[in-house]
C-alpha cells in the first residue's frame, strides 16, 4: 500500500525509537480440520485435508495433511464415489472426520458455465523494431496493442460470480495460465509475447475496491474476479487491453503456421466461496486493511472460510473459453512493412 509506505518512511524516526519483542501468547486453542477443494464441473473432486497449527510452531514447514481422515462426498445429498464427476447445478457436500482433529464439512453448488457470446477485437501497430531481412521471406519484429470487447449474458434470477482469465497460444500450444506477466512463446524462428494486460481497462475488475481502499492506493492489478451485481440478468461487455504485445519472426521461408497465434479468453463462473476467498486475498495482500492490522492500528483480518471449522475453502467453478487469432493482422503487418 503505497501511501502507508511513504508515511512509514517519514515516521521512521519515531518508529525507530520503538521495538518489537517476541512473545508467546497464552491463549487456549486447539487445532481443527481444514478442507480445501476447488470443484470443477466435469472433473474429479480433489480434497486436501489438513489441520491447523499454532502460528509459532517451529515445525510449521512440515506436512500438515491428516492421514487418518475419512472423507465422504455427497452430491445433492446422495453419497458419491471417488470417481464421481460433478455436474453444473450439483450441490456438493464434503465431510471429513478424523480421530485426532474432529469433524469438518462444507457445501458448495457447482455454478453453470456462462459463455462469452461475442468478441470484437482490434490490434493496433505501435512500433516497428525491424523489418525485412535480406534472404528471409518472412521477417519482422514489431510491437502492437490489442483491444477486445467480450459480451457476457448473465443468467436471470441468480447471483453470479465470475473470474476472467486468459492465455496466449501458438499453434494450439497454450502458454501458462498466468495472468501476472507473460512469458514469450519461443520457437526457433518466431517469438510471440502477449504483452501487458491492463487491469484498469475494465472497471468491473475493481468493483471490490471501495473508496477507502482506492484512496489508500489499492489497485485492481492482478484481480479479475467480479460479480453480476451491476448487470444482473443482462449483457455486459468486458473490455480487455494488452499493450506492448511483441511479435518476432525470422524465417527464410514463408510459413503460415508461424502466424498461428492469439489469445484464449476463459470465463469461469465461480461459487461465492471462491469469489470471497479471492476478495480476502486481495484485502490481505493489496488492500489497506492488511497493512493497518499489521501495524496494530486495526483489527486483524482472518482467512475467509466456508468450512464448518473456519479453516479452508471449498469452492466450485465451471468455465468456457473462446479464442481470437492474430494471423490476419500479423500477415498484413509483415507484408506491408
Amino acid at each position, binding site marked *: 500500500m503505497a501511501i502507508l509506505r511513504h508515511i512509514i518512511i*517519514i515516521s521512521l524516526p519515531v518508529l525507530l525509537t520503538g521495538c518489537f519483542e517476541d512473545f508467546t501468547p497464552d491463549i487456549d486453542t486447539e487445532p481443527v480440520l481444514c478442507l480445501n477443494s476447488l470443484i470443477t464441473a466435469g472433473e474429479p473432486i480433489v480434497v486436501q485435508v489438513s489441520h491447523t497449527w499454532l502460528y509459532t510452531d517451529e515445525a510449521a514447514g512440515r506436512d500438515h495433511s491428516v492421514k487418518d481422515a475419512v472423507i465422504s462426498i455427497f452430491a445433492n445429498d446422495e453419497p458419491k464415489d471417488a470417481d464421481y464427476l460433478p455436474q453444473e447445478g450439483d450441490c456438493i457436500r464434503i465431510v471429513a472426520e478424523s480421530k485426532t482433529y474432529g469433524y469438518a464439512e462444507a457445501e458448495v453448488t457447482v455454478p453453470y458455465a456462462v459463455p462469452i457470446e461475442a468478441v470484437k477485437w482490434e490490434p493496433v501497430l505501435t512500433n516497428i523494431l525491424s523489418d525485412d531481412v535480406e534472404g528471409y521471406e518472412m521477417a519482422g519484429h514489431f510491437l502492437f496493442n490489442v483491444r477486445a470487447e467480450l459480451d457476457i449474458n448473465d443468467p436471470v434470477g441468480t447471483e453470479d460470480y465470475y473470474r476472467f482469465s486468459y492465455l496466449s497460444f501458438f499453434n494450439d500450444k497454450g502458454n501458462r495460465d498466468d495472468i501476472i506477466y507473460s512469458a514469450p512463446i519461443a520457437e526457433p524462428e518466431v517469438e510471440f509475447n502477449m504483452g501487458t494486460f491492463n487491469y484498469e481497462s475494465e472497471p468491473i475488475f475493481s468493483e471490490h475496491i471501495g473508496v477507502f481502499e482506492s484512496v489508500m492506493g489499492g489497485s485492481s492489478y492482478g484481480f479479475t474476479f467480479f460479480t453480476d451485481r451491476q448487470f444482473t440478468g443482462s449483457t455486459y461487455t468486458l473490455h480487455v487491453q494488452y499493450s506492448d504485445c511483441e511479435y518476432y519472426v525470422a524465417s527464410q521461408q514463408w510459413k503460415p503456421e508461424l502466424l498461428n497465434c492469439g489469445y484464449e479468453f476463459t470465463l469461469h463462473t465461480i461459487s461465492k466461496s471462491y469469489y470471497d476467498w479471492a476478495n480476502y486475498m486481495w484485502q490481505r495482500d493489496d488492500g489497506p486493511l492488511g497493512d493497518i492490522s499489521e501495524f496494530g492500528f486495526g483489527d486483524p483480518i482472518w482467512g475467509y472460510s466456508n468450512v464448518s471449522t473456519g479453516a479452508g475453502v471449498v469452492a466450485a467453478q465451471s468455465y468456457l473459453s473462446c479464442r481470437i487469432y492474430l494471423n490476419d493482422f500479423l500477415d498484413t503487418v509483415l507484408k506491408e512493412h
Partner: protein
Amino acid sequence: MMKRTTALLLLGLSAAGMSASAQNVTIKATNQPAATVFRSIIEQTGKNFVYSSELLKDLKISVKASNEPLKKVLTDMFRNTDIEYRIKGKNVILKRRKSPKPVSVQKYTVRPTTLPSVDVSKMLDEVVVVSRLEAPVVETAEIGAKKITADEVRNTPALFGESDVVKTIQTQPGVTAGAEGTAGMYVHGGNADENLCMLDNVPLYQANHFAGLFSAFNTDIVRYIDFFKTSIPAKYDGRLSSFMDVRLQNGSTDGHHGSARLGLTSGAFNLSGPIGPKTSYLVGLRRSWYDVLTIPMLAVINSKNDDEKMRFRYYFMDFNAKINHRFSPRINGFISAYFGNDLLKTGAEDRNEFITGWYENDKFDFNWGNLVVQAGLNYRIKPEVTAEFTAAYTRYFSGLKHDDLYKEFNQGAVTETRAVIKTDNNINDWIFRGDFDWRANDNTRIRFGANYVRHSFLPSRTSREYTFNDEKVATRDSTWAYGANEFNVYVEDDWRISNRFRVNAGVHASLFNIEGKTHSGISPRLSLSYRPSENLAVKAAYTRTVQYVHQLTQSYLSLPTDQWIPVTGRFKPQTADKIAVGAYWQSNDGGYSVSVEGYYKSMHNLLDYCDEYYLKPPLEMWNARLTSGTGTAKGIDLRIEKTYGKLTGYVGYSLAWADRKYSEKNDGRPFPARFDNRHTINIGVNWNINDRVQLNAAWTGHSGNRFTLLPQVYDSPEFGGLYSFYGDQVPLRCSINNYQLPFYHRLDLSCTVRNSRGYWTFGLYNAYCHLNTVAVRRSYKDMIIRTPEGITITSKPVFQKVKLLPMIPSISYTWQF
C-alpha cells in the same frame, strides 16, 4: 510573615461565555453563600474572583441589582464589610482591609464565629491563583460533571509538550485514551464517536489532528471546558457517552494582550483587545511546523537518489476569531469563526528509464478539517430571565486525491496509464437555536430551549478515472448524499428543595427526519442529591441519550477516510440508558474532595462493522457492512483531589467492565470491548515551588487494551488464480478481543519556569522510558543455524509486541504581552 498555603482561592471560569464581556450586572440574592453570588457575577461579566478562602468563610450575602455597573454592585456588596476589592484585568481581587470596619448585619449577614479567628495581620497582600470556580461538588445534584480550567489543561504534561484538552480529560476516571499518544476518548465503555465535542456550543465532527495525535483546540485561548459523562444537562443530546464543550476566551476589554508560543511541533499566536468601548476581539492561530523540518530533510534525501524522489508535506492549523459587542446593557452579541485544517501531501516519483524501463509518479493529496461560523445574541429579558439566540454553521470536510501516473518504455514505445481517484466526504450543518435561563427564585433555575439543525451528509462522492495513452478508458463516479432535519426541545429544572435535598430533572425530545422517515427520541434526565452534612453528599442519577449519527472507521486512528453517516435503512437510532450513584465529600475549605461513583450503562442499536465486512461489496450501501447490537458497561470511578495550595493533585481510579454483542459479529456471542480496561489509575501532582517555577507530574496506568490475536493458521488453498503459492498460511478466525495487552503505565513530567515576559515549559513524556505495548503482530524472525556443513538461515514465525514511544523531551516558550 507566615504563608498560608491553602488559604487562597480563585473563583473564576464559569458558564455563559457569551455574555462575559458585559460589565453590568443584574442579580438578586437573599442570604446566599458568597460563592454562589460570585458565580452569578462571573457568568455575567466574565471576571474571576480571587480571594482567601478564610475571607469568605460562611459569609452570606443578600443583594439586589438590576443592570447596574459591576463596580457599583461590588461596592454595595462590600460596603459594610472588612473586605475590599480591586478589579485587575479579568480578576476581581478581594482582600481584607488593613483596618477592618465593624461588621454590619443590615444587608449582609456574617457569622461572627469565624471572622474573629482570622488574624488579619498575617494575611498576605499577594494573591496566588490555585483553583477555579466551579460549584462545589457537594452542592450540585449532578454526577460525573466536571469543569476544567485552561490552567489544568496547561498543567497536564502531554506528548511533545502540546497541552491538549482531550488528553487532560483522559485523566478523568471513566475515560480511556485509546491508542498510545492519541487524543482518543472512550467514556464509560463507549466508542470514540459517542462523544460530542463542541467549540462554544457548536459541534465539531473532527476534533483532532494528525491521526488523532492532537486535539483541535488551541489551548492558549481556551477558557474552560465543560465535561459531562453521567448527568447530562437536558440541553445536550445526540451522543451516547459524553459531552465536551470547549469555551474560548472573550476578547480583552482592558487593553490589547497577546501571546506567542513556539513548541516542538507547533507554534501559536494569539491577540485580543478592545475595539472601542463596546467591542472586543480575539484571534488565535496555531500551526504545526513539522513540514518546515521535512522539506529540507527530503531535499537532502532526494538529492542523493536520482531514481526516487519522495514527496511529503504535512501540517495542521487552527484559526479562531471572535468579536463581542455590547449593543445595550441588556443585549450582547458576538460572532466567531473557527477553521481547522490538516493537509497531507505525499507520494514518490520513481524512475528506471533505459531502453526498457518505467517511470511512476504516485501522488496523494489529503485535505481535511472543520469550519465553524456562528453568531449569537444574549438578551436579558428580565433580571431573572436571559435568552440566547444562536445561528451557526459547522462543516466537516475531507478531500482526498490519489493520482498515479505510470509509463512503460519498451524500445522506443511508450505506454502510459494513469489512475486518478478523488473522493470528498463532508457534513454541513445549519443550526438555529434559542436557549432560555429563568432563575425563578433563589432555589429554582429553569433552563429550556429548542433548536433546529439542517444536516447535509455527503459520506462519499467519488470519481475514478483511468486513462490509457491519454485516452479515457474507464470512469466510475458515485455519490452518496443525505439530507436530514433534526429538531430538539428541552426543559430542565434545577431545584434546591432544601438545604439537604436538591434535584435536577429534565427531558430532551428530538425528531430526526431522513429519507422520508422520522425517528423520535425522548431522553429523560434526573439527578438527585442529598446532603447529610455540609461536607457530604450522596447522589443518584438516571440519563438516557440518543444518537442519530455514527462514524465509520476502519482503524483505531482518526483518519480523514472516516465517514460520518446518519441512521438510515434498517437501523434504528442508538440509545443508552445509564444509572449512577455517587458519594462526595469536600473539606470545609473546599481544598480536598473525594468522590466515588458507580454506574451501569446499557447501550442499544449500536453499530459496528460485521465480521468479514471487507468481503461485502463496496458498491452496496454501507448498511450491508454493518451490524447492530448491544453493549453494557459498568464500573466504579474514584477520585481524590486537592485543589489548592502549593501542592495540588489528584488520584483517580476506575474499575470497569465493557462488552459488546452483535448479531453478525463473533458468531453473535458477547465479547469484551477493545478498551475494556479493568483497572485504570491516574495520579497527578502540581507543585508551585514559587511564583516562577511549577512542576507537574502525571502517572497513568491501566489494564491493557483488548486485541484480537489469531493464534492458529492453516494451509492456503492452492487455487485462486494468481494469489496462492505453496506454503502460504492463512490465519484461522477466533474470538474477538481474545487477548489482553500487558499493563500500560507511563510517567509524564513538565516544568514551567516564568520570567517577566512569559514562560518556558519543559516536558518529558514517558519519563522512565517504559516502552508500552500498543499492538501485537505476526512476524518472522531470522534464525541462524550452524551445522558442520555450514550456516543455514531460516525464519521462525513469532508473535511480537509492538512497543512505541520512549522518553520524549519537549520544550516550548510562550511570550506574553
